[in-house]
């Protein structure tokens, strides 16, 4: 009955712009699955995560890179995100299969919209909107924080010396992009 086909149109699809040597772009096919550790069965869940991604879940506020370029982000005592690249809308069942029922999973792919900010101006631009201290001593590579920027909830991850992945709600993607873009324009 496939008379109709659906087109995938994530809100910032294809956005890619340079500001001097600094680049702001929306990564393609970013998949996000939340993982909740069952109360009382945390150890089993952590073990399953460890073997599924070949990396141990770090402490809250940190992330690690696991198998297949999957970034594991610990958001709280019992909650983590797995962030990876996947075009098809089956990120959650994919992770659930890997974990084999050891943790609760929820698809977060379409809840969020992502922007990668990479380059020498990245930190200077983020100073205009991000209340978190991004000095490398305070926010090293792999660090992750949920905070508020321009009234928007944002998950910020440091993915490189000058590179950050920012995630915010997909419904307010326009305001989110505006916030980051304006910051870049204001410091360029």
């Amino acid at each position, binding site marked *: 009955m496939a008379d109709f086909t659906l087109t995938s149109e994530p809100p910032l699809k294809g956005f890619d712009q340079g500001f001097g040597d600094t680049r702001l772009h929306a990564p393609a096919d970013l998949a996000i699955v939340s993982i909740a550790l069952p109360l009382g069965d945390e150890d089993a869940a952590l073990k399953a995560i460890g073997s599924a991604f070949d990396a141990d879940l770090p402490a809250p*506020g940190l992330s690690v890179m696991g198998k297949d370029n999957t970034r594991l982000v610990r958001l709280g005592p019992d909650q983590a995100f797995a962030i990876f690249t996947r075009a098809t809308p089956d990120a959650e069942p994919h992770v659930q299969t890997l974990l084999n029922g050891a943790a609760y999973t929820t698809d977060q792919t379409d809840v969020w919209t992502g922007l990668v900010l990479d380059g020498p101006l990245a930190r200077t631009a983020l100073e205009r909107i991000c*209340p978190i201290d991004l000095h490398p001593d305070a926010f090293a590579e792999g660090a992750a924080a949920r905070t508020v920027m321009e009234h928007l*909830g944002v998950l910020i991850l440091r993915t490189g010396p000058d590179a950050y992945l920012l995630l915010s709600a997909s419904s307010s993607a326009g305001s989110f992009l505006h916030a980051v873009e304006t910051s870049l324009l204001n410091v360029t």
Partner: protein
Amino acid sequence: MIIDHPLLGPRDAAEFVYLGDAALIDRPDWQADDAMEKFHSYGYLRDNPAGQHQELWYHEQGDRSWLVVTRNTLTHEITAVELARDVARKRGRGK
């Protein structure tokens, strides 16, 4: 203000939502004979001291944890920040 989150470190109070007296953790037994009276006190007769106070703050723009913050309401000095879940368990709450 800055709240030193026990897991995440110092965060601006702008990330948090304030609720009030941490006595809200001590929800009365619904089946007690004097449940009505107890719930009335629970809901309406909370403390609001000028001085040291245990308060509930919610890290809404953060990890979504509820915290018990011990704060001096006169000076804003914060002397302790705990996960409310731990406090609740210590106070005997379970399922």
